[in-house]
């Protein structure tokens, strides 16, 4: 296969050729998919260094496990993100302990019922605040927000990546968005309170 043909080859063909030991296919797949894997890890962890490590771990896994990939079961994108997700979970578990990965039950109980208008979230400050809010979501909601809303994966692909039914993706997405809204309303209320003229901070 020529270089041009390789560039045009579907992901599944590249993975099969990697399994057969073809270096050029690995190079093409890496250049085609590394950015999505890196961004996924970056949005989940907020750390460029961890995102680099995870991207490397994912493609090293591809080298070793390409022969196990079953084209009919999932897309290559979903497979790669699924591997990345497991490496991210391991890193987060190592750094924060397993308890913090899925501790959102209490927060779900306090889901937003506030109908206040959500201010503009496209300013630089608001985007930073939103990034922090995404990172503070319990991992199960953060994953679907990142895959569906930030990486524009379909529900079906997200379900393949996470190994859960599409219905679960939908419900987690709804809850994740509601949690994000609550966090942003809180952040905006806090910001408004401290920027009101005449207010002073208590340093007791």
């Amino acid at each position, binding site marked *: 296969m020529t270089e041009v043909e390789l560039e045009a080859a579907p992901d599944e063909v590249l993975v099969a050729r990697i399994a057969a030991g073809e270096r050029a296919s690995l190079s093409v797949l890496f250049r085609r998919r590394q950015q999505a894997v890196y961004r996924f890890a970056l949005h989940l962890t907020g750390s460029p260094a961890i995102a680099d490590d995870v991207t*490397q771990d994912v493609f090293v896994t591809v080298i070793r496990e390409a022969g196990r990939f079953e084209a009919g079961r999932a897309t290559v994108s979903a497979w790669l993100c699924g591997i990345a997700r497991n490496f991210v979970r391991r890193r987060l578990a190592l750094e924060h302990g397993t308890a913090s990965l899925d501790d959102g039950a209490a927060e779900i109980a306090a889901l937003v019922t506030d109908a206040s208008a959500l201010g503009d979230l496209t300013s630089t400050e608001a985007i930073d605040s939103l990034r922090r809010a995404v990172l503070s979501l319990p991992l199960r909601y953060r994953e679907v927000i990142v895959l569906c809303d930030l990486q524009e994966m379909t529900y079906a692909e997200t379900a393949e990546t996470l190994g859960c039914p599409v219905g679960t993706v939908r419900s987690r997405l709804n809850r994740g968005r509601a949690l994000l809204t609550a966090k942003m309303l809180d952040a905006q209320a806090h910001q408004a309170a401290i920027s009101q003229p005449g207010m002073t901070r208590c340093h007791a």
Partner: protein
Amino acid sequence: MTEQQQRALAAGLEALAATTTSASASARVEDAVMAEFARIPSPQSHARPAASNAVWRAIAAMLMLACASGIWLAQRHTRPAAAAMQQAGFLEIPGTGYLPPLESAAIVRVSLPVTTLPSYGIQIAPDMTTESVDADLLIAQDGLARGIRLVNDLQRSGSTP
């Protein structure tokens, strides 16, 4: 959530996504990946025909069985409780060897996040998609867990003790 909130959140998330559209792994990552590829001596080691895979799996299974039998027989004489535990399908949890011998025990079924399995001495495959798994914990007379036994089909989906 109101419609206004949904629209504002969608716009914010779109703006957040746009901040990383050009983000990508550093150059050292590609170098490291390609170096790893070169490190593996024979290209054929990447690809094994299905029949060959089956043969290797059979050999590996036989070796594992032989090792497990050997360990079981060796421990049968020295640690009867541990042997009985293994006979019941429990794996000894790493780091419990120094604890007092098992005199009586209770079995408690729990649901564990897959990410915790390595701490119980069970390896998980990198591409595993299961989130949690049901397991039986063997709780000894002192209230500390000594053994673990998976109760679903996790092994088929990628875990190895």
